[in-house]
């Protein structure tokens, strides 16, 4: 590590260490992880690039304010366990967030080195240490305090809350509707972006800490909030995610082979339809696939289609590429894998072929008009510019509505008019003082790190409320 007068001197010359990617042509044929992550050498080189800012803007950019310069310094010192402990003070899921956070809008977007050159690869460094969980110090477990908490949903928000509570001495049970834990991390985000083994490691860790998992348990149907309280739970944390797909509301949307992204992704990620008939769940292997949307969900769907053998896989988006909400890395990866981007189109109608399944989609071409409230130029239809794109699979990935179970769970908590749970921003407490909520079911579809952060805040609030600390 270069030093002058005992002080660390950052490496201001080297460019950002490029991602360690599998070759695009090969990886687009299977579900192997696209990004292999930094080697130790790469991590050490990248860590040298951090200027250890006195006023680190990167920390402000991180929604949970991880002490980034500190953990990067620990990497420089090869104190990886220490680096992990530093991250874990704020985030329970570094191996996951390092992979899936939209860093360019968060920590890296604010990094000072991005002004003149390229920002430090904070996400990659976080993942590098996150992938060595055995090095972290074992978290101190408070003695059992005799209180029981039920967590509903095992997505990032639920598992974070469960972990924190277990550490604080609570007896925690997680109820999960599916047969396995992880929420969107397992049924939504594909293996090639977030290996399921990484998620499983987190769940296993919680089980080791004594957290109980009740799978196949749809709270609201199998037990209401009141029944859980009657069974002896002292508090509830609800993290059921967003769920419920949003419609495009155009004719032909129900034709066979028109999917919502959730179904398309669940068939493959959770049910392993890519291995049909070895696994029983089938899916459609389209030759021409069109995906509507511009976010991470759309990218995951289109890249999955590519891996299922699509010759032409198109992302069709209402606005332009610059405005796509997807992580930049995903867009870049998708294009490298041969995905076509078709900006400024909006679907008008799905058309059935002779066999009754979708054979084409009619789209309206758009152009950028006057800026709207968000300051972005609003796409407006170009009159008469209508095109038909042939497709044998079409996927809609334009967002989700509130999970319908929020209203069935009961208790005295209130929902807003869109069906999301109303919860205090700082504590996560709902209008029923025995119930907390967080993650996508409060904010609407958001990010893993925000869902994680909400779980952590709620755990602190539940602890305070139940133990009076």
């Amino acid at each position, binding site marked *: 590590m270069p030093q002058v007068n005992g002080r660390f001197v950052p490496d201001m010359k080297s460019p950002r260490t490029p991602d360690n990617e599998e070759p695009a042509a090969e990886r687009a044929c299977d579900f192997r992880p696209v990004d292999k992550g930094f080697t130790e050498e790469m991590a050490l080189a990248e860590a040298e690039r951090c200027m250890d800012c006195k006023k680190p803007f990167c920390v402000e950019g991180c929604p949970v304010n991880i002490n980034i310069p500190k953990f990067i310094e620990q990497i420089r010192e090869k104190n990886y366990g220490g680096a992990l402990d530093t991250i874990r003070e704020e985030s329970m899921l570094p191996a996951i967030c390092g992979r899936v956070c939209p860093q360019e809008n968060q920590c890296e977007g604010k990094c000072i080195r991005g002004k003149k050159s390229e920002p430090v690869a904070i996400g990659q460094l976080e993942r590098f240490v996150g992938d060595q969980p055995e090095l972290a110090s074992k978290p101190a477990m408070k003695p059992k305090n005799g209180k029981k908490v039920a967590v509903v949903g095992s997505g990032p928000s639920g598992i974070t809350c469960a972990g924190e509570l277990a550490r604080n001495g609570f007896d925690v049970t997680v109820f999960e*509707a599916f047969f396995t834990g992880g929420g969107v991390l397992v049924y939504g985000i594909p293996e090639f972006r977030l290996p399921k083994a990484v998620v499983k490691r987190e769940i296993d860790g919680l089980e080791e800490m004594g957290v109980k998992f009740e*799978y196949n348990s749809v709270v609201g149907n199998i037990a209401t909030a009141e029944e859980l309280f009657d069974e002896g739970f002292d508090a509830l944390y609800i993290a059921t995610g967003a769920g419920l797909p949003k419609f495009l509301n155009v004719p032909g949307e*129900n034709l066979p082979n028109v999917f919502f992204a*959730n179904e398309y992704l669940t068939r493959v990620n959770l049910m392993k339809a890519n291995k049909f*008939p070895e696994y*029983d769940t089938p899916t459609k292997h389209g030759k021409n696939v069109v995906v509507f949307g511009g976010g991470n969900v759309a990218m995951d769907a289109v890249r999955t289609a590519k891996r299922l053998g699509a010759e032409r896989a198109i992302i069709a988006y209402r606005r332009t590429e610059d405005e796509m909400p997807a992580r930049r890395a995903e867009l870049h990866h998708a294009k490298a894998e041969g995905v076509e981007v078709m900006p400024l189109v909006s679907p008008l109608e799905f058309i059935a072929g002779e066999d*009754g399944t979708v054979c084409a989609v009619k789209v309206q071409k758009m152009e950028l008009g006057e800026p709207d409230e968000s300051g972005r130029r609003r796409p407006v239809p170009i009159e008469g510019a209508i095109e038909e794109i042939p497709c044998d699979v079409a996927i809609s990935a334009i967002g989700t509505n509130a999970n319908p179970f929020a209203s069935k769970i009961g208790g005295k908590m209130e929902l807003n008019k869109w069906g999301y749970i109303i919860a205090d921003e700082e504590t996560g407490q709902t209008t029923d003082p025995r119930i907390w909520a967080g993650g996508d079911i409060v904010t609407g579809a958001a990010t893993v790190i925000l869902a994680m952060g909400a779980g952590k805040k709620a755990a602190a609030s539940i602890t305070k409320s139940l133990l009076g600390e």
Partner: protein
Amino acid sequence: MYKILEKTQFSEKVFKFRVEAPAMAKHAHAGQFLMVRANECGERVPFTLAGWNADEGWVEFIFMVIGKTTEMLSAYEAGDALRDVTGPLGVPTEMPDGPCAVIGGGVGLAIAFPVAKHLIETGHEVHAIMGARTKDLLLLEDQFRELLDDEHIHITTDDGSYGEQGVVTAPLERLLESKAVTQVFCVGPVPMMKFSTLTAEKYGTPITASLNPIMVDGTGMCGCCRVEVDGKTKFACVDGPDFDATKVDWDDLRARQAAYRTEEGQSLKAYEEGSCACHK
């Protein structure tokens, strides 16, 4: 794992499993369903709750062998365990007071039976109309006969091999004509439900259909089970499976049910040839 406590065979292709599931048994209602995944490689398939006992902690479902998963399930024995059972899902069946016709066609009889039983138990007079293509495919006749006398059972077969020849709409029409029933519940193949609905509409009698589109999660997350009702998109797993039959877009449902015919054939073939990875 969910242990099979009891297996009952009703006919060559119709079975009932009693499965250990105490929490589900406590919250079960007629008209709700379970999602079953037999083993690690299994698909998630919905089956209607056919019985439950909260004290003894079990639930039951009746199924007919029609493809890979049901074929494989039929090889499970009491003492074996199912990898996953989730439920109860969906909205319970609600019928106002008054005599009802319960129509079941084909495998739909497995779904109609628990509903008929529930209606009888809640004080309704019930006429069961049981339809099948041919005598051998008529499900659960003995079970229906345990619940109802001959006057209340109406059987039709397409080929006339049993009961009256024809389709379920003939006895339905008679019941409506004579005002013997004031509401109708139907479940079965789309054409049967569609024509039952037209018949009921002719007499202005309310009719409920239990819809059975393909499902994946059964919890409102994936959108696979969407159906068009009254011009609106609904999810059969969370908004249904029961809907006002006069508002259902039947062509839409039929097309979506058939979406995986080719793959279903492939799957069954692979299983029968033994090339499937997890037999049972």
